[in-house]
C-alpha cells in the first residue's frame, strides 16, 4: 500500500513563493514609477501578458497541465524582472521579444520550471542588448516629465522616438563621459553634477535601489532567500569598488555609487538569488554572490556594456553546478571528517 507520510504538510506552494517575490518588488517599483513616470507600469503589464501567453503556448505544446503551471507565478517573476531591467521607454516589441525569448527559449526549451540553467530574465537582457544595443541603452533623460499618454505613445511607437527624450543611465553616462573626456574629467567633478547623479548614484535612482533593498530584506525576513548571496554580492562589489576608489578616486567611483546605481540591488536580492539557476549550498551561495558582484563591477567599469549585472549573473549561472558540487556541506555526524 502507498504510504504517503508525512501526512502533514506546511502550507506553502510555488505560487506563494513567487507571489511573495513579486510583493517584495513593489517598493522598488513604486520608487521607479515615481522617478520615470507611469511608463514602467505599462511595461510591467506588457511583459506580464507576453510571458503568460508564451508560457501558455509552451505548456500546451509540451502537454503540461495549463492551470497548474500557469498559476505557479514563475513566468510573472521573469516578466517583472525583464520590465524592470529594460529601459522604461523601450518600444513594446522589445520587451515582448525579450520576454518571449526568456520564456520559450531560456525556460521551456530547457525543460520548463526548475530546469533552466540560466536566469531567463537575464538571458533576455543579454540577448536584447546584443541584438538591439541602441534601444537597450536609451533611458529617459533626467528630469524628463512625460504624462502617461505621451509615454504610452512612445512605447507603442505612435510617437516618434525623439533623441532628446532619452539619455543614459548614470552608470552609462559616467562611463561615456570618462571615455570621451580622455582624462579631462574626473569622477569627483562628474559626480558633483547633481542633475544627473543626484546625491549618490543618480537623481532618484538611490530611491529605487533603496526600494529593492527594502523588498530584499523582507524576502530574507520571510526566509525566502538566505543572506548569503546578497551579502556576498554587496560585499564583493563594495570591496573591489572601494579598493579602486581608494587607489584613485578621480578615476573610480565610490562603492556607494556602484551599490546604488544600475541593477546592483535588484541583482543582489532578486536576480542572483534565483534558486533554480543559482547555487544551493551555503558556501556555494557565498561564492556565487561574490563572483556575481565582482564580475558585475568588472564588466561595468572595464567592459563594453553600461551595466554588468546580467552578464555577471549569467556567467555565474554557468559555474553554479560545479560550485555546488565542490561545496557540499558535511552531513550530520560527519563534520570532523570533512
Amino acid at each position, binding site marked *: *500500500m*502507498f*504510504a*504517503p*507520510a*508525512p*501526512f*502533514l*504538510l*506546511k502550507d*506553502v*506552494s*510555488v505560487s*506563494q*513563493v513567487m507571489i511573495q517575490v513579486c510583493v517584495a518588488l513593489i517598493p522598488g517599483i513604486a520608487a521607479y514609477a515615481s522617478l520615470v513616470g507611469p511608463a514602467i507600469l505599462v511595461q510591467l503589464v506588457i511583459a506580464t501578458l507576453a510571458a503568460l501567453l508564451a508560457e501558455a503556448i509552451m505548456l500546451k505544446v509540451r502537454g503540461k*497541465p495549463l492551470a*497548474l*503551471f500557469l498559476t*505557479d507565478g*514563475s513566468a510573472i517573476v521573469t516578466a517583472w524582472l525583464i520590465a524592470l531591467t529594460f529601459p522604461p521607454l523601450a518600444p513594446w516589441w522589445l520587451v515582448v521579444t525579450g520576454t518571449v525569448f526568456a520564456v520559450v527559449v531560456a525556460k521551456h526549451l530547457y525543460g*520548463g*520550471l*526548475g*530546469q533552466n540553467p540560466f536566469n531567463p530574465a537575464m538571458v533576455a537582457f543579454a540577448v536584447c542588448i546584443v541584438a538591439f544595443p541602441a534601444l537597450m541603452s536609451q533611458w529617459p533623460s533626467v528630469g524628463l516629465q512625460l504624462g502617461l499618454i505621451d509615454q504610452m505613445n512612445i512605447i507603442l511607437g505612435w510617437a516618434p522616438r525623439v533623441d532628446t527624450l532619452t539619455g543614459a543611465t548614470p552608470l552609462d553616462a559616467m562611463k561615456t563621459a570618462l571615455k570621451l573626456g580622455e582624462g579631462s574629467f574626473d569622477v569627483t567633478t562628474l559626480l558633483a553634477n547633481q542633475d544627473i547623479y543626484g546625491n549618490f548614484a543618480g537623481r532618484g535612482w538611490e530611491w529605487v535601489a533603496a526600494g529593492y533593498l527594502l523588498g530584499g530584506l523582507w524576502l530574507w525576513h520571510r526566509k*525566502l532567500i*538566505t543572506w548569503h548571496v546578497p551579502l556576498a554580492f554587496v560585499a564583493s562589489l563594495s570591496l573591489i569598488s572601494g579598493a579602486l576608489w581608494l587607489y584613485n578616486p578621480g578615476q573610480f567611483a565610490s562603492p556607494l555609487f556602484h551599490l546604488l546605481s544600475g541593477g546592483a540591488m535588484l541583482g543582489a536580492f532578486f536576480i542572483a538569488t534565483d*534558486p*533554480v539557476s*543559482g547555487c*544551493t*549550498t551555503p558556501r556555494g551561495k557565498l561564492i556565487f554572490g561574490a563572483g556575481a558582484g565582482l564580475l558585475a563591477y568588472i564588466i561595468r567599469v572595464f567592459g563594453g556594456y553600461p551595466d554588468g549585472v546580467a552578464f555577471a549573473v549569467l556567467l555565474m549561472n554557468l559555474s553554479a553546478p560545479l560550485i555546488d558540487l565542490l561545496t*557540499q*556541506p*558535511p*552531513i*550530520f*555526524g*560527519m*563534520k570532523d571528517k570533512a
Partner: protein
Amino acid sequence: MLMNLFKFKGGVKPPTNKTQSVTLPIAQAPLPSRLVVPLHQSIGGMPQPTVQAGDKVLKGQLIGEADGWISAAVHAPTSGTVLEVAMHVQPHPSGLDALCVVIEPDGKDEWIAHAPLDYAAMPPEAVREHLQQSGVVGLGGAVFPTHGKLTASKTVPMEELVINGAECEPFITCDDLLMRERAEEVVRGIGVFRDLLQPKKVLIGIEDNKPEAAAAMRLAVQTLGETFEVVQVPTLYPAGGAKQLIRVLTGKEVPASKRSTDLGVQCFNVATAYTAWRAIAHGEPVVSRLVTLSGNVHAPRNYEVLIGTPMGELLKLAQPHPDTDGIIMGGPMMGFLVPDANVPVVKATNCLIAHSERLFPPKAPEMPCIRCGSCAQACPHELQPFEMYWFSRAKNFGKTQEYNIFDCIECGCCSFVCPSRIPLVQYFRFAKSEIWAREREKNASDQAKARFEFKQLREEREKADKAEKLAKAAAAQAAKKAAEAAAAAAATTETNGLSADAPPAASEPAPASTVDAAKAAKMATIEAAMARAKAQREAVQPKNTENLTPEQQKAAADIEARRIAAHLTEPEPVAPASEKPE
C-alpha cells in the same frame, strides 16, 4: 538546573495537535474478542512459536521464543485458547503477512506465576537475559531488543545515558501521559539501565511542550534520590529522534555509520524504561503498551492496550467520525496508513490516528523542484534532499549514495516544507529499496557464480586426477611390457651367444619400449580427454533432466549410447598443456 543545550540543524514545527488527547487519564482498553499476536515484533531474529492451535495459554505465557541474541520473546497478552498459528496481515506499509498466534481470550485475564526479581543480586548478563525473555524492546517505535543495547562498549567509556521523553511527533501523547502518571516506575527503570551501563550522567530529555510530564519526572527523580537530570528541550520536530536528542543534550553527533555507544552515549525511550522495570519488579513480560487514539475522532485519549488487539476494534473506543477513511499508525510525519483495519496493535504501535480528508487534505499536485533549498534547510541530517531527489528520479542510485542517502532517517521534514509538494521521502525510500534489491541480487548472483566456479574447478581437478591415474597405469603397463621385452631380448642374445661385452641388454629394445610407453600414454590421455568430455557433457546437462523417472533416464542413456556409437560425440581435442599428447 541550568544546562547548556545544543542545537541540531534543520527541523520543522508542524502543528502539534497534542492537547486533544491529554485531557483524560490513561484508560484500560477492554479485552478484545480476539488477539492476533505477531511473533516477529522486534528487529532481529524471528521468534519461533512455542504453542499450537488448541493450547490453553495464560497471560504472560511464552508463545514465541527469542531466536538468537538480537531477538526478543513474545508472550500471550491474556489467558485463553490458541485458535491458530497462522499468517496474518501486519501493520506494515508493505501489507505483508507474518506468522501470528491468534488467541481467543477466556475473559479471566489470568496471569502465569510471576515474581519480582532481585536484580541487584544478579549478574548483568542474567538481567539482560531476563529482559530478553520478557520481550522488552524499544517502544519508541524502533523495537530494537533492549537487552542488546545494555552492554557498554569495552573501549569507549559510557558518558551519558540519554532517556528519550521528547515525543516530537504531532498527535502522539502516550509517553507524555506515561511520564505524568507513572513517572516513578519510569525512573526506576532508568535506574536499572544506569546500573547496567554505568554512565557518568543520566539525561532525561522532554520537549518543553510537556511541562507536566517534566515536573512529574523531576519529582520522581527527587523522591527516589537519583541524580538524573530532567532537561526540557525545545519543541522542534524531530527532537525525539535518538540522534537529534543526543545532539541536543550532549552535543555529540552520531553518524549513520556508527552506533551511539561508539561515542559513549546510549539512548532509551521512557516507555522502554517503564516496561523494563515492570519486567524486573513484577516479572511481567511486555504484553501491553500505551497507545494514543487521536485524529478524526470524537474522544481522543490514551489507552493501555493488549498487544494483538485489532486496530479497528480499538479505535472504536475513541469514536471515530463517520468520514474516517483509514488508520495511520504512528505520527503524521513518519507513520503510515495500515493496510487493513484489523491489523493488530504491536509493540511498535504508539499511536493510531483516524485519517480523514478533512484532517489531512489530499496533497496538491507535485510540481518540479525549483531548487529553493527549503528541504536542505529543514533536513536534520544536513543532507541535500533535492539532489537525492534528482538522482533518485533519474534512477542514478550510485549518485544518491554519494549524496549519503543512507543517512536519511526518513523523518519527512523535507517533504513537509517543499513548496513544490514533492514527496521526497518516498523517492528516498524507493531509491533505498532499489539499492538494497540490487545488492541482494548482486550478492545472490555472486554466490551463484562462486558456486558455479567452484563446481567447475572441482570437476577439472577430478578429471585431471583421473587422467593422471590412467596415464600412470598406462605407463606402468608400458614399463612392464618393456621389461618383458628386455628379458626376452636378453634371452635371445644369450641364446645367440653374443659376446659379454655386447651393449647392455636393455639398450637395444629400450627405444622400442619407450615408443610403446609413449603410445600407451597417448592413448591414456585420449581416454582421459574423452572421459573429461563426457563429464563436461554431464555437467552441462540442462536442469530439466534432474528429476527424471528411471524410464526416462534409461531412454536418455540409450540415446547417448547410440550417439557415442555413431561417433556423434567426438572427444574434444583440447586438453591442458601438461597432458597434451605430443
